[in-house]
């Protein structure tokens, strides 16, 4: 599903060149649930941005579902993001003046889906994350956990190949975090490929594979025994 070879990325900060990613080789199969770990500055966010086509690598190749991601113009990048990827952010990034339903429907709008079908599909996904009753509520009327559920529904609505989650439990308390991870595990069990960037070991333990980044290189990449999220509660 994801195939990365010899990926390099550096930023220029003032006069210094900061080499963030120093040759990443990385492969993810369909249906995997992977945690990318690392302390801050390890390059994990940069890797995620490149995976999410929000940023481009300086060197190396990136294939997503067999499509080479390279030299994309803005328009193509937008189309690919919509088609291949679903984003889940630490701070949810819901549009605050739109209802939960409209937030979920937004990627479908950019796909060009017509009004009625769009609403039906969005409602369907809200139902899946257990928030059907909250469809007409605005984000500020929802709790953190609920917001993240809406964000997950939004990420899934466009039927992406891969879900990319950036510290998705970073703003939540442990109980809520585990509930969210439970949802992620269920979605994964339905066959969705999911990448989770996190620095919390307990969250990482709930995935099936942990990739450890340090100073721009992968120092450790191993499959683990998955821990069920709700076992702890």
């Amino acid at each position, binding site marked *: 599903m994801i195939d990365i070879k010899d990926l390099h990325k550096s930023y220029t900060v003032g006069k210094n060149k900061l080499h963030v990613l120093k040759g990443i080789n990385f492969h993810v199969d369909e249906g995997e649930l992977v945690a990318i770990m690392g302390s801050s500055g390890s390059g994990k966010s940069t890797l995620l941005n490149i995976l999410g086509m*929000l940023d481009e690598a300086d060197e190396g190749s990136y294939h997503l579902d067999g499509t080479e991601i390279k030299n994309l113009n803005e328009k193509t990048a937008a189309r690919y*993001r*919509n088609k291949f990827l679903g984003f889940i952010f*630490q701070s949810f*990034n819901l*549009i605050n003046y739109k209802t939960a339903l409209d937030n979920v429907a937004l990627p479908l709008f950019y796909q060009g889906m017509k*009004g009625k079908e769009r609403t039906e599909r969005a409602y369907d996904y809200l139902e899946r994350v257990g928030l059907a009753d909250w469809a007409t509520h605005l984000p500020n009327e929802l709790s953190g956990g609920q917001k993240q559920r809406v964000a997950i529904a939004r990420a899934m609505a*466009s039927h992406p190949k891969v879900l990319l989650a950036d510290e998705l439990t970073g703003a939540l308390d442990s109980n809520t975090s585990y509930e969210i991870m439970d949802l992620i595990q269920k979605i994964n069990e339905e066959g969705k490929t999911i990448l989770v960037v996190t620095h919390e070991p307990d969250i990482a333990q709930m995935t099936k594979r942990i990739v450890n980044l340090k100073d721009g290189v992968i120092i450790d990449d191993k499959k683990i025994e998955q821990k069920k999220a709700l076992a702890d509660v």
Partner: protein
Amino acid sequence: MFSLERWQEVFLTIGKNKLRTALTMISVITGIFILVVLLGVGQGMENGIAEQFQNDAENEISVYTGVTSMEYEGLNPGRRIQLKNEDYQSISRTHASDIDKKSSMYRIWSGLITYKDESGSYRIEGVLPDYEYIEKVSLVSGRFLNQQDQNKSEKYMAIGKKVKDDLFGDKNALGKLVQVSGINFKVIGVYTDPGGEREESRVYVPLSTSQTVFGGGQDIRQMNFTIPKRESYDKALAESDQLVAKIERDLKSVHTVAPMDNSAIRVRSSIENAKRFYDLTSMISIFFWSVGVATLFAGIIGVSNIMLIIVKERTKEIGVRKALGAKPLSIIGMVLHESIFVTTVAGFIGLILALVLLENLGPLIDTEFIKNPEVNLSIAVTTLILLVVAGALAGFFPARKAAKIKPIVALRDE
């Protein structure tokens, strides 16, 4: 591009930011309001000036006299020049082929006219029949003075509408007798004059009658001529200038006035004034348009600024949208749509407010120089086009900025 969803987005954003939108709209409303009112007043000034011209025939030449200002052939300055009937006759005879309508005049600046219990002071002018065309009066009822009246020195009078309203009210004035210094005059006509009330508070009597009754003898106060219609303005102007020069030369030689003395005998051509006024109106119109457009431009810059702030505020949202697959064009469309919508709606409100003001206040403003301020259809259409262009312009730069926002920058958590 302008789908239903887009409209919903626009309304949502506007509804979410009522104060900001209201402030933006106020700046555009003010801009358009001032532009349209200025244009209306400009039009009013043009109307007023145009009417000043239509008062009297536009190809008119008038002759007045005054006091000599320089010594000439042994005669002292300060001598009053008095025109006589024979001056008029000789001028009309010598230049008969160059002259179309002609009249001389004897005038009482203020004469007390009485009808039964009503009375008032009006300007009484003794004129010849052609004066009807020179002054451009139109008869509401009855007739103007004719040659017969002049020949027989009839005590007939054509009165202005104001005079009729003052003395007769709603009653019929024709055939009634009014008294001027104890002498009876019969009203034979009531006229209106495009010059308005000022020119309608005059009465006309035959020249011969006025000279006899008011003791004018052979004196006349002024002479008026028009030249025949010519196909082009320039030709008319040239002929008029020629005639003015000839009349001036003739009269100055008859009355022994220095050729350079411009205060003793004054011959004026309205056609030159017309030219001057036409230039003036175009200047006025250019001035009002520039001030108005500048005001509007200030409003647009306001909108543009606010759109920039909106884009800045919505950086994160735009980043999210892009992460969710929004194409740059759709972001540009979103910002442009909002700004065009806001400017157009605000512009409409400004336009309507201005029109309502002009409609209600316009007829009340009726001075000599501003008459019936109005905005015609082409001006309204022009401002509308200006508005849409303005909205697009105001939105364009912020939209381009929005489209350039990188999702990665937008999504960085602070």
